[in-house]
């Protein structure tokens, strides 16, 4: 079984890897690039813990093959902060205790960032539906939704 050579950009860095065509982008990020921020909670696109953005589009990295990402721009949770300055969402998640165990947090942050880029003023309902593909089993979502909406408000005020 031959492997494919893939060149891509992850969080602004040019990277290359060899992958079996059956390996998902998530497999490649975690096992080949050591970027273990994206998590595998289900492998079927139902939990969102592996959320990343590819060419600006929010996707489940378990539902994309590594070979498909040649030449693409990939953003993961590891790229959300600007150096040592946390993204406002990251800061708010800590302040609001919007995480308990934290396994869903990377995916939720990537998804929430994508929401706020598209819709800077989401309603609670819009926020909840946007994040419906990100399962959290610990929090009941209450503090997550509050953190996202409050971040949106702060970002609006700041701009």
């Amino acid at each position: 079984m031959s492997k494919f050579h893939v060149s891509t950009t992850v969080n602004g860095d040019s990277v290359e890897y060899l992958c079996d065509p059956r390996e998902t982008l998530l497999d490649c990020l975690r096992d080949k690039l050591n970027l273990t921020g994206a998590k595998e909670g289900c492998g079927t696109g139902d939990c969102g813990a592996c959320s990343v953005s590819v060419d600006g589009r929010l996707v489940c990295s378990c539902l994309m093959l590594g070979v498909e990402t040649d030449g693409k721009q990939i953003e993961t949770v590891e790229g959300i902060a600007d150096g040592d300055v946390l993204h406002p969402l990251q800061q708010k998640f800590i302040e609001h205790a919007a995480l308990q165990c934290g396994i869903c947090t990377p995916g939720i942050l990537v998804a929430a960032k994508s929401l706020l880029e598209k819709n800077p003023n989401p309603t609670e309902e819009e926020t909840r539906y946007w994040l419906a593909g990100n399962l959290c089993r610990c929090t009941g979502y209450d503090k997550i939704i509050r953190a996202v909406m409050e971040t949106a408000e702060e970002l609006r005020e700041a701009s």
Partner: protein
Amino acid sequence: MDYHSPASFAEASALAANATGITRFLAGGTDVLVQLRSELVTPDTLIDIKKIDGVSDIISNADGSWTIGVAATGAEMSEHSELGRDWPGVVEAMDLIGSTQVQGRATLTGNLCNGSPAADSVPAMVAAGVTVTVTGPSGDREVAVEEIPTGPGKTSLSKGELVSAVHIPARGEDGGDAYLRFIPRTEMDIAVVGVGVNLRLDGDTVAEARVSLGAVAPTVLLVEDCAKAIIGSTLDDAALDALAAAASAACNPIDDKRGTIAFRTEVAGVLAKRAAKIAYARAKGEQA
């Protein structure tokens, strides 16, 4: 597993025609990858069609009809405001599939060719009278959407054939469509029942209608009796009751982990009424 990313549909067709074992085309991959990962289907040949020029385009044709590229995602369709104005039912049906993340990948064509009777976009496409271009070793042919699935996981496409474009008819005047599905949660479920309604009004009277049911039979159904029940009516209570009865009567569902026969049969009628009311309101230019 061999992986190919051909540059044209002809090349894709030739690759598939010459392949041995199991062949799958990869568009959004939201079904193919799940089946691969769960070892339900491990293709010997995987043909990625996303490198073909124009596959992500959503084109408004001069005659008012639409051509949707086979790799255009649900998210791209939802973001296309004119398409949504013409065919809100089709766009919403597509948008109901999976999460925001899945929307970033999933396609109409993939949803159709996966062959699931519960595919959300298919009843909406059938009601809308959508056709697809099928490219194969002997050239292209135009096929109505309802002709593609032949049973759970099965399609009428033969070896070497693939869908290369989706055509949505011109909306025209005084028309409206809607799709509703029932799921136990608010998101992330497979339809237990789905209903697509597309109609055209003459004044307040329904002049033309197509009603389609999903998840209540081995394939998505186009139910003529449902259309008959409302054509000629102003969608009064009697017509809606007749519609519901016709929808329930058309059901041939199974009991499974997602719903019972009794539930699906009953709810098909309920959703048919609700979807017809929305389509009717849209045809009248009202918000719904």
